[in-house]
């Protein structure tokens, strides 16, 4: 999990640089500071399980094993991108890795994850769906509709709230009726209130693994609220200046990656081993960046492609 967290961090740092160099257009939402969640949850999942991510989904996509090159290339809008440039940063999807989409409308994917879980239940597979969402999603209708349906139908779905304390530019507590936006609502749907340290990959892994086990056993959904913090702003356009310096400093001190590194050193892993992982990851980021840049620019052949299942875009004869 150290490699995974470190890779997510280095990938996103590079993605930010690529923005500054104008290789990446549009917007992007980084999850620097929240890597323990993507890494911990992915480690608890089987390859056949499904992830439903948000527009802040680079980490969740990579953590499931999607290679860096097509993700960089997708951010750059190239033909070797994960979706050939048609989706972009906010819609990363890789069905072959169980990454069933990144959804950029707040809360929309929660009922969709319920549908996938319903399909697993109906077909008698033991697949589980995990839906990630932020604290902001807990105040939208789809969140409540999804939780109720999942509870009533006992669906094998895990609702994973990454509470980074800020709902875009607004402090979550100022616009939310309860202190713990997800966990305090769990009882409304007959679910246990689970709050964890989202900056501790081991804790994330363990609690998620238990929830997944319950789901596979037919015991229905769980909701987990993980406290965490994004080191940067909401999106590319946001320097995050509205946050008090002390708060940022406090959370930088709880950075999941140095913390996990220290834990491994204390457990007897050598500095050399960790350095070797870091050197490998950095080389991978460099290589993937260059490979992504070699991709072609999507052209007219892609414009009308795949509106329909026949591969085309015709709406008339």
């Amino acid at each position: 999990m150290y490699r995974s967290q470190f890779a997510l961090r280095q990938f996103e740092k590079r993605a930010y640089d690529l923005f500054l160099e104008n290789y990446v257009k549009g917007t992007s939402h980084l999850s620097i500071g929240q890597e323990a969640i993507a890494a911990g949850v992915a480690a608890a999942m089987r390859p056949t399980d499904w992830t439903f991510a948000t527009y802040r989904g680079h980490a969740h996509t990579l953590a499931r094993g999607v290679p860096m090159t097509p993700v960089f290339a997708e951010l750059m809008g190239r033909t070797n991108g994960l979706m050939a440039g048609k989706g972009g940063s906010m819609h990363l999807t890789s069905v072959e890795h169980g990454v069933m989409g990144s959804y950029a409308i707040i809360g929309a994917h929660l009922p969709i994850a319920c549908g996938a879980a319903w399909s697993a239940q109906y077909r008698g597979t033991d697949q589980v769906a995990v839906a990630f969402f932020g604290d902001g999603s807990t105040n939208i209708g789809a969140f409540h509709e999804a939780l109720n349906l999942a509870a009533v139908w006992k669906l094998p779905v895990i609702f994973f709230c990454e509470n980074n304390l800020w709902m875009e530019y607004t402090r979550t507590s100022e616009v939310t009726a309860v202190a713990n936006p997800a966990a305090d609502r769990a009882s409304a749907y007959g679910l246990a209130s689970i709050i964890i340290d989202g900056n501790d990959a081991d804790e994330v892994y363990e609690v998620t693994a238990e929830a997944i086990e319950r789901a596979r056993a037919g015991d229905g959904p769980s909701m987990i609220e993980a406290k965490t913090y994004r080191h940067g702003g909401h999106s590319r356009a946001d320097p995050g200046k509205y946050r008090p310096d002390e708060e940022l400093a406090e959370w930088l001190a709880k950075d999941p990656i140095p913390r996990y590194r220290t834990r491994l050193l204390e457990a007897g892993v050598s500095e050399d081993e960790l350095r070797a992982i870091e050197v490998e990851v950095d080389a991978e980021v460099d290589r993937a960046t260059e490979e992504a840049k070699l991709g072609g620019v999507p052209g007219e052949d892609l414009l009308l492609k795949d509106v329909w299942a026949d591969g085309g875009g015709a709406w008339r004869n």
Partner: protein
Amino acid sequence: MAQLTFREAIARGIAQEMRRDESVVLLGEDVGAAGGVFKGTVGLLEEFGGVRVRDTPISEQAILGAAMGASMTGLRPIAEIMFSDFFAVCWDIVANEIAKSRYMTNGQMSFPLVIRSGNGGGLRFGAQHSQSVENWAMMIPGLKVVVPSNARDVIGLMAAAVRDPDPVIFLEAKALYASKMDVPDGEIVDTLGSAKVLRQGANATVVALGAMVPRALEAAEELSANGIDCTVVDVRSLVPLDTMTLLREVSATGRLFTVEENPRLCGWGAELVSIIADEIFYDLDGPIVRITTPHIPLPAADSLEDLAIPSVERIVTTIHKAMNS
């Protein structure tokens, strides 16, 4: 051959597909034990059981989200949105999620699902339970839109919609639920994107959809007694649109009248008129006339609702006047 109401045809059409394919499931408010508020799903719970026919909470986003998630992972759900006006509370799932996700993922995902919904007026339900929203659906890239006008077509188009690999919005004209016709026994399977010529005439072409089709036919009978012989085409499918049939039939008479239940602005007829103007303008012998509901929320009082929705009388008068001016 059996006489069947439009509402009975819905249950028969769904049952036909559920018997054939175990991946077909049905979900929605009151679709199971109650048999649907319009009695369109009577008997399905009894035949297929509660695992395949699922009553849901009043949660339209959850209904369509569940249908979408199920369809991307191997099922073929038929979801019901009770009144098409309610699309407004789950339009994100329809327009942003279901419609766009195949394209955005470069074809990685398929959404073989059908969303059925009671559409349009005629039942004096007022503005929030009576609107014709076919044009909402038609304007979203990635959605197919089907509107049957009779019991036989309900079965055939339902089969085509369920078997189609793309998401299909299946709009059932509420005003037609009680209408009856003789329907052949056995399996009926239609094709999406095929308009049907119901009547051939030399003077004018009347193109209608859903509940407006029987009215257009009745109007054509009256006009024929007055010496105006009309072709009547049932569009049946807005997306894909059978442009070839429509262009051919308009060219043949040189006159086009659309009969649309949707409020006037951006109705499906406007798109058709634009295609005609673009491609067969010089085949026209006179102005194109759209006969629509005015651009208003639909009123509840029977007198007002009847004034709003194109009636047989309004169709006859409008065509008569246009053909004699």
